[in-house]
């Protein structure tokens, strides 16, 4: 169930910006502005899921997927768009103190958008599941001994995140190695260093609580049943190109 993403590109004269996207029959409308005085900001769309809400059953419930995508990611996008407009406005006015005061909120909401945009394509229906192969598999075996080794390590670290955050399989271009790490809240991986996110697992309670309650390790075990290793391999390929 794919929606169309419509974005109007502003012409040189017009500063009217409209961005809408249809994601599973819901739409997020970015605020539009017109008139030469208002700064042009391109609205960020809520990306569609590459599959139906129920596609990851029984590993991750359709109920969770719908709330997670529509409400949580949807709210991050909405807030982020508002903040981007505000940021542009403050910058234009030269209100740098104001500009800095909203950066935390930008990290929260923009980070939420960045992280979830990686998360959705990182997963696929079980029927489409294939274990890693090629260069990615070789790298996994080299760093973690085996796929099971990676899963054990990443699950352990993700289970240990205190409060809200993410587990990551990441690539370090400087060391030319893949590694596992975690971030807190919606901090994107880049806040830790110049790393490329390959695979993310959301361990905020909203990602699993309705189905798994407090049993985060059970959720993690089931998450790894629906990882889209082809997507991970593509990211790895781009990072190592």
């Amino acid at each position, binding site marked *: 169930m794919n929606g169309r993403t419509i974005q109007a590109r502003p012409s040189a004269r017009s500063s009217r910006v409209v961005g809408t996207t249809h994601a599973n029959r819901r739409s997020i409308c970015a605020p539009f502005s017109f008139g030469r005085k208002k700064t042009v900001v391109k609205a960020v769309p809520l990306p569609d899921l590459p599959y139906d809400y129920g596609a990851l059953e029984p590993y991750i419930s359709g109920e969770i997927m719908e709330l997670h995508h529509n409400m949580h990611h949807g709210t991050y996008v909405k807030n982020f768009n508002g903040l981007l407009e505000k940021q542009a406005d403050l910058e234009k006015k030269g209100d740098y103190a104001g500009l800095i005061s909203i950066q935390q909120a930008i990290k929260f909401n923009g980070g939420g958008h960045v992280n979830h945009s990686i998360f959705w394509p990182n997963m696929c229906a079980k029927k489409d599941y294939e274990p890693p192969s090629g260069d990615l598999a070789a790298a996994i075996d080299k760093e973690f001994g085996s796929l099971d080794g990676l899963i054990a390590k990443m699950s352990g670290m993700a289970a240990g995140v*205190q409060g809200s955050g993410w587990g990551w399989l990441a690539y370090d271009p400087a060391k030319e190695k893949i590694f596992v790490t975690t971030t807190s809240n*919606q901090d994107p991986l880049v806040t830790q260093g110049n790393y490329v996110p390959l695979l993310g697992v959301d361990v905020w*309670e*909203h990602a699993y609580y309705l189905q798994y*309650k407090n049993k985060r390790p059970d959720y993690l075990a089931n998450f790894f049943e629906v990882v889209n290793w082809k997507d991970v391999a593509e990211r790895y390929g781009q990072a190592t190109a």
Partner: protein
Amino acid sequence: MTTTMMMMMMMMMITMMMMMMGMAMANSPNDGLTTCLYEPCDSQAPVPLPPLPYPYDSLEPSIDNQTMTFHHDRHFAGYTKKMNAALEKMAAAMDDSSNSTIEGLMSSLSSLGADPDTSLAFQNNGGGFLNHKMYFATMSPDGQRTPTSDSALEKAIVASFGSFDKFKEEMSTAAKGVFGSGWAFLVLNQDGQLAVVANPNQNSPLMDSLIPLLGIDVWEHAYYLLRGPDRGAYVDAWWDVVDFAPVEQAFEKVAPA
């Protein structure tokens, strides 16, 4: 008497005066940072998980049966268990017959000399234990929804916030504004003022020398089963089950004279 001797005597007198002042300060109503305000007040592991003082479904419709059950029997229980494990490690490492309360350990955590992993485990799980024992003790199906008129607590709230409604507004806003997991607390600071603070994860205000009197848990597990992402509705509903009676009792133990 020679000048030197007079100076020496003056120095001694000044030193003695300072020592006496120091002693007086140490013996003055304690800073409250070691006072246990909510049961259980055991200081040695294994600290028991206190039972819920009311039926699991008795806070409906504000907070549902299932949430109360998981929250108390799994989350609170888990923190208690892991805190006890951390306490055992800390007792072994510390030269200890201090009999410090859990509150006292938390407020002096940075100077306990525990290794970083154990210290963090205690911060998270001891914090989870302290925060949740207060949380469940300050809710009740038939509790007092506002402080007793003319009570010390009510006067302090008015003095610090202007009115109860302003305090309620500030605490609600703080609770709703926490990003990620955390709490909003009503605290007493070392200047004898009440304040609202928001902390991430299970961080206890005691680590910042603030005495927590009341808290709203805004980790998603506190509301998600009934309300999904709607934290705002949960915070609003929480005021219908808060019980200020134990908060008043707690305040009396630590209030400035």
